[in-house]
């Protein structure tokens, strides 16, 4: 092939054999229904987790006479539902269609990254916090007995190690995602700066 000119490349790109994928309105409506159903399922699954955690906490409050433990479990219940509310809000927030079409590629990309960054900024608030609080308050009597008799620490070491590894893994992963999103946002800010210079 001899050297390609601009027009050849345009032609090359535009002439590429397509699969001729035909998508009619009926398929689109079905896809819309499927997407909505999937989101509803996810919402229900999240709500179910929150309900289970609440039920466990309520049971803990019912059976344990310890005031501190009961208060802790009650707070965990509240925390769970605050996190659940935030999660629902995130899931039903307008996605791409409609309003998003009023944004440019740059604005949209930045917005998506910021959403992601906000989510990964506070893993304690939305996920780790309620789960760990529930574990700690349930284990409060055990932790107290360990404080009274340090020799018992060996009994919970395996569980403690697994929990710690899981927390560390989770935190490292979320931190990495947060930092990557931040790095890209900084890059976009530089681009926006150049945009300003370009227009000025």
């Amino acid at each position, binding site marked *: *092939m*001899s*050297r*390609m000119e*601009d027009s050849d*490349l*345009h032609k*090359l*790109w*535009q002439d*590429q054999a*397509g*699969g001729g*994928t*035909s*998508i009619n*309105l009926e*398929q*689109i409506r079905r*896809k*819309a229904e499927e*997407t*909505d159903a999937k*989101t*509803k399922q996810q919402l229900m699954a999240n709500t179910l987790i929150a309900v289970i955690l609440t039920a466990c906490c309520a049971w803990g409050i019912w059976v344990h006479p310890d005031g501190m433990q009961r208060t802790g479990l009650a707070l965990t219940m509240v925390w769970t539902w605050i996190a659940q509310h935030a999660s629902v809000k995130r*899931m*039903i927030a*307008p*996605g*791409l*269609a*409609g*309003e*998003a*079409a*009023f*944004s*440019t*590629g*740059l*604005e*949209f*990309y930045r917005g*998506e*990254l910021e959403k*992601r960054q906000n989510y990964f900024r506070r893993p304690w608030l939305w996920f780790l916090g309620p789960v760990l609080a529930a574990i700690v308050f349930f284990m409060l009597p055990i932790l107290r007995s360990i404080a009274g008799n340090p020799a018992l620490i060996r009994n919970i070491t395996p569980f403690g190690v697994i929990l710690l590894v899981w927390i560390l893994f989770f935190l490292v992963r979320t931190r*990495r*995602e947060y930092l*990557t*999103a931040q790095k*890209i946002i900084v*890059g*976009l800010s530089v*681009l926006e700066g*150049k*945009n*300003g*210079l*370009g*227009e000025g």
Partner: protein
Amino acid sequence: MVRAPKPTTEQAIAQDDLYRQVDGLYRASLERLARAYELDPDKRRDLLQEIHLQLWRSFALFDGRCSLKTWVYRVAHHTATSHVIRNRRIYSNLVGLEELDIAGASGAEVDVDRLKALEQLSKLIQSLKPLDRQVIVLYLEEIDATSIGEITGLSPTNVAMKIHRIKSILKKKFRQGESP
């Protein structure tokens, strides 16, 4: 879940008509766009369906504030960009146009046929960061610089610089096929 206000019957008909019109005009172009974002055929089909769905939904709100072309490309690229973010591809080694020369220099084969050239071109596009990918795809679709600016939000100067860069990269990359 996208919560668009429920359209009236007339609006729904207009929405469907607009979609049919766009499907007729841009189907092939949208298919190429999906190819620029997803290599895997099954995932690409899903992405394309998602693009069509988002377009159809978006037409409930289309008010002519921008041209239909700008609207279509914005929705399509936004959907594809979300796909890239969702699949965590932004965490892999995507490069900017500025870095592409170095990244693309290694192992560039002398291409002899169009299929290979197209493959090389697709690979090159897929290695780019989302915004640069938008610019190169729009350039290859022969969208004018002003419209590229409107779609991407880049200033005319920035668009011009990026297109200049794209041209020189493509020239270098595809000159390798020149007969001795």
